[in-house]
C-alpha cells in the first residue's frame, strides 16, 4: 500500500497550504481566560530551598574572606561572632518572612537574568533592533533594583532578629 502520496497530488497540497491559518478570536474570549487565571504562587519548599542555598553562599563567602584577610580593626570580633552565628543557624530557624522574601528576590533575579541572556542573543542576530534594546535596558534596570532590594533586606534580619554574642 502506498502511504504518502503527497508528491502525486500537488494540487491538493496547494489548496491545503492556502487555507486560512490566522483568525483573531472574539475579544470576549480573553476576558473569560483572565477571569479564570489563579494568582501565581511559588512553592514554599522551593522558596525555603532557595533561601537556604543563598544563606549557605553568604556564609561560605564570609568565612573564606575572613580566613584570607584577617581583620585588624576592633570590629573583627563582632564579624567573627556573626559568621559563627550564621554557621550555627538551622534552616528551620530562619524567619519565614525573610526566607520568602529572599527566595522571591532570587527567583526574580534568575528569571530576569535569563531574559537578559535571551535578549543579548537576539541582539547578536538583529543588531540595532530598537525594541530589543529597549527591553534590554528595562531588564538591566530591573536587575539593578533587585540587587539593591536584596542588599537592603539581607542586612535587616541579622542585626535585628538574631542575638549574637560579641
Amino acid at each position, binding site marked *: 500500500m502506498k502511504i*504518502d502520496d503527497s508528491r502525486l497530488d500537488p494540487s491538493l497540497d496547494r489548496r491545503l497550504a492556502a487555507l486560512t491559518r490566522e483568525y483573531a*478570536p472574539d475579544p470576549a474570549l480573553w476576558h473569560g481566560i483572565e477571569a479564570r487565571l489563579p494568582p501565581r504562587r511559588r512553592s514554599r519548599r522551593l522558596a525555603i530551598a532557595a533561601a537556604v542555598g543563598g544563606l549557605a553562599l553568604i556564609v561560605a563567602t564570609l568565612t573564606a574572606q575572613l580566613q584570607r584577610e584577617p581583620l585588624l580593626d576592633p570590629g573583627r570580633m563582632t564579624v567573627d561572632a556573626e559568621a559563627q552565628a550564621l554557621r550555627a543557624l538551622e534552616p528551620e530557624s530562619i524567619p519565614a518572612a525573610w526566607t520568602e522574601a529572599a527566595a522571591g528576590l532570587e527567583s526574580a533575579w534568575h528569571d530576569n537574568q535569563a531574559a537578559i541572556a535571551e535578549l543579548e542573543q537576539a541582539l547578536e542576530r538583529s543588531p540595532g*533592533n530598537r525594541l530589543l534594546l529597549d527591553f534590554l535596558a528595562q531588564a538591566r534596570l530591573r536587575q539593578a533594583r533587585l540587587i539593591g532590594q536584596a542588599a537592603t533586606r539581607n542586612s535587616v534580619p541579622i542585626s535585628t532578629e538574631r542575638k549574637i554574642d560579641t
Partner: protein
Amino acid sequence: MNDALARPLPDAAAERAEDAVRVAAARRGDRAAFEGLYRRHAGWLLPMLWRLAAGDRGRAEDWLQEAFVQAWQKLDQLRDGAAFPAWLKRLAVNLALADQRRGQLTLVDQTSEQAAPEPPWPAADLDLERAIVSLPERARHVLVLFHLAGLGHTEIGLAMNIDPGTSKAQLHRARTLLKERLA
C-alpha cells in the same frame, strides 16, 4: 517535525526573544505580559482547533481558553520561554485530543446529513474546509496535525497514542477521501 509550516519570518528571532521576556514576566504573575502572549498566539491556534473540532466553533473556543489557562498554570514547566509557541501548540493539541477521547462534549455526527459548518473566517476554499471537517475523526486529526499544525508522524503518533505507521495510513486515507469529495 513537519517543516511545511515553519514560518520564515524576518523578525522570528525578535519574536522569540519577546516571547521569552513575556514568559519570564508572566511567571512572576504579570497578567499583562500573559495577555501579550495570548494576543500573539491565539490567532493561529483557533483555526487549527476549529478543524480538529470538526467545525464546532464553541468547542474550539473552549479548548482555546482552557489551553491558555493551563499554560498560565504550567508556565514554570517551560524551561525555554522562547519555545512558548511550540509548547502551547502541544498543550492545546493534547487537550483537544484528550477531550475528544473522553467524549465529554457531544460529538458532531460526521455521518449525518446536516450541512457541514462554515468557518468563522471568510473562507477562500469553502469546499475544502467542509470536506476536511466532514472527514472521519482519526483521519481528520492526522490531516490537520500534519498539514495545518506542522507536526511529523512521530509527534502525531505520540499525541494520538498511535503508531507512526498508523498516522501515515490515516493521512493517506484522509487525502484519498478529500480527493473523492472534491472531485
